């Protein structure tokens, strides 16, 4: 073990940079943008952690990873211990290390951010997580002896997988039901390969399966089985079936050929591998000029995908300014580097079609920002007479999703809010005893890590429930 550096020595180290594919190379391929830290760089970054006695970073993490401990183990070169520490709190570290908005969670709390840049916690998490995937003895979670209890998890996205991992660790027999043909939910249909390679998701899922979790694909709860049937066959149920239905703009021309929801566009390219067409069978329209409407991570993913599919121009159309964009800072930065254009303070009012009903343009108006609305963000106000047309041949609508009623409509006893999201108590339990829920079906559209936080919290509550403690 190296000699312990003083705080002063630690403070002298600058934040290490992630190695990335060159922007003008990567915007034409689907390989991962971030290449990971080399060992030396990771150890140096780990040394930057001050190992605070009262660490604030942990409370910033929705799954409460013991951040200073795993970083200390990493710095000591004790990777097995670092991995065990990380996996104890987070069953999917290679995923969260890539897609979490660390800058608003753990890293924003890091004391080093007060003067300079915070420790790159996400990079280190990814480093340790990826290391563990290459180790034979890190292929499963530490599982308690069997409790004899059976648990059903609905949905194999981040919330469902996290809950499955936690429940398996407690010794419960877990079965995960997935509607699509591949496990991972939004991690495989939504988040692109260049941000989260599918082999990473496969490896994390494989670890859960190695730990005893059973995953059943092509099973739509609400259709193939009802929630009531799951209740009859299992001791507890966790519902994490995601947000579901895409929201459209509700403007004229929205059904012209070439208008996609971001869900469809990304599903075709990610889950169905349409970027490999005709080697993969599912096609996608590759626009020359693609306009993506929205300002979140899904909009960034769509617009960056369009560029990679060969669009000459890929543009983000957002009705507020850059400052209000809900997307992660890193994604916006990467998008800019890759040559995407941004039209801020612009709102679409109509999709223009040609005589064959293909998309030919997006008619928009310019906006000013007014007083904050109920979300606290400035309300965009239309500037009269500011109409103009953005010429484009594909429009991707990435303005959110609403609750999918497939499951809830067949389970009338489940209490919902006015948007159709499932209502849960502070432990994540629904109005049905033994049925818990979390992630987007509870929150509306949120993030991977918030869904994981819900999965972890609910798993704890379910374990208590199953052992009669609650």
């Amino acid at each position, binding site marked *: 073990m190296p000699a312990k550096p003083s705080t002063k020595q630690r403070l002298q180290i600058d934040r290490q940079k992630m190695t990335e594919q060159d922007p003008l190379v990567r915007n034409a391929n689907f390989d991962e943008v971030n290449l990971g830290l080399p060992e030396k760089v990771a150890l140096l970054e780990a040394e930057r952690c001050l190992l605070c006695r009262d660490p604030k970073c942990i409370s910033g993490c929705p799954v409460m990873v013991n951040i200073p401990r795993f970083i200390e183990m990493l710095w000591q070169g004790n990777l097995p211990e670092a991995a065990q520490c990380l996996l104890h709190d987070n069953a999917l570290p290679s995923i969260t290390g890539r897609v979490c908005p660390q800058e608003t969670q753990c890293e924003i709390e890091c004391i080093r951010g007060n003067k300079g840049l915070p420790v790159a916690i996400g990079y280190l998490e990814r480093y340790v997580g990826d290391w563990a995937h290459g180790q034979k003895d890190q292929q499963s979670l530490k599982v308690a002896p069997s409790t004899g209890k059976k648990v059903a998890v609905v949905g194999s996205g981040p919330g469902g997988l996290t809950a499955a991992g936690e429940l398996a660790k407690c010794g419960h027999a877990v079965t995960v039901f997935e*509607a699509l*043909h591949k496990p991972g939910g939004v991690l495989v249909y939504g988040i692109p390969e260049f941000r989260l390679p599918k082999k990473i998701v496969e490896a994390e899922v494989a670890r859960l399966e190695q730990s005893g979790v059973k995953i059943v694909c092509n099973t739509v709860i609400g259709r193939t089985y009802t929630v009531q049937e799951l209740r009859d066959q299992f001791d507890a149920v966790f519902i994490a079936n995601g947000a579901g*239905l*895409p929201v459209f703009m509700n403007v004229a021309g929205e059904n012209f050929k070439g208008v996609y929801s971001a869900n*469809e566009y990304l599903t075709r390219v990610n889950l*169905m591998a349409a970027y490999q*067409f005709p080697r993969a069978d*599912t096609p996608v*329209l590759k626009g020359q000029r693609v306009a993506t409407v929205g300002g979140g991570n899904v909009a960034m993913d769509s617009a960056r995908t369009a560029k990679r599919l060969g669009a000459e121009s890929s543009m983000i159309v957002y009705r507020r300014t850059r400052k209000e964009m809900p997307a992660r800072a890193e994604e916006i930065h990467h998008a800019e580097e890759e040559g995407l254009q941004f039209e801020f303070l612009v709102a679409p009012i109509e999709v223009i079609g040609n005589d064959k009903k293909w998309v030919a343009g997006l008619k928009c108006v310019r906006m000013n920002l007014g007083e904050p609305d109920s979300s606290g963000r400035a309300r965009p106000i239309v500037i009269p007479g500011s109409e103009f047309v953005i010429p484009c041949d594909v429009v991707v609508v990435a303005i959110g999703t609403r609750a999918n009623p497939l499951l809830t409509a067949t389970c009338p006893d489940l209490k919902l809010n006015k948007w159709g999201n499932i209502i849960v108590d502070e432990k994540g339990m629904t109005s049905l005893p033994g049925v818990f829920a979390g992630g987007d079906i509870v929150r509306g559209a949120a993030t991977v890590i918030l869904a994981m936080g819900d999965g972890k919290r609910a798993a704890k509550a379910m374990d208590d429930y199953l052992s009669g403690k609650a």
Partner: protein
Amino acid sequence: MHKVVARAQLSPNVTRLDVIAPRIAQIRQPGQFVIVHRAEGAERIPLTIADANPAAGTIVLVIQSVGKSTRELVALEPGRAIAGIAGPLGHPTELIASGRALCIGGGVGTAVVHPIAQGLQRRGVAVVSVIGGRSKEWVIFEAELRRLGEVQVCTDDGSYGRHGFVTDAAKDALAAGGIDIVYAVGPVPMMRAVVNLTKPLGVRTIVSLNPVMVDGTGMCGGCRVGVGGQTLFACVDGPEFDGHLVDFDLLMDRLSTYRDFEQQALAACQEGACKIGLK
């Protein structure tokens, strides 16, 4: 995995596959469909469940070979398997409780009409079927429908049954009176023609729409259709709708979205990239 237990050629381009899917066979209802995912890399294809045998644990899929994906599917010989079948999806058919129903099937749509007629017959509704095809060899599911009621067959060339379109026979059936509801499934122009017949008569008409789908669970919105001025998703709001309210022009147009890609996929296939034995 879902093993194919039987395969039969029903018409020059329509094939019937009997496939193991016990859960779906047990709970499927008329009008529902499945998403079929043949293998890694294949498209997800929506197919109506034409029939089922709960005791044997099988469902019947009736597939029209159009592009590469459907040709590869019908090339599956008994003993081979389909990787994934999800369902049953969509709302079951709105079946009337009593009376007399006219079921109109055109081409492969006749297989979609079959479970509807089955459901009606089980409820004691009198079923009159009008089915058709280009010529005799294109007529499918005649025997199955005859078990459920009266059947009139039409062929475009007069080689079998009545010479003419199904709409001609439907017109006569409607004129004779006593029809409480019409179910029509077939090519878009056929469904539109039926609706144009029934609308002035005020006879409720249900049509089954088959737009492009990916997930089939409401997630992608690719299958959006216009119904009564609203945009709905065929997978979760349908696939059956009140025909008098359907925007058939929109349906027809959106169905053409990937035509060039289909050609490209077939061409790539013929160059030897796949082994589906194109005819």
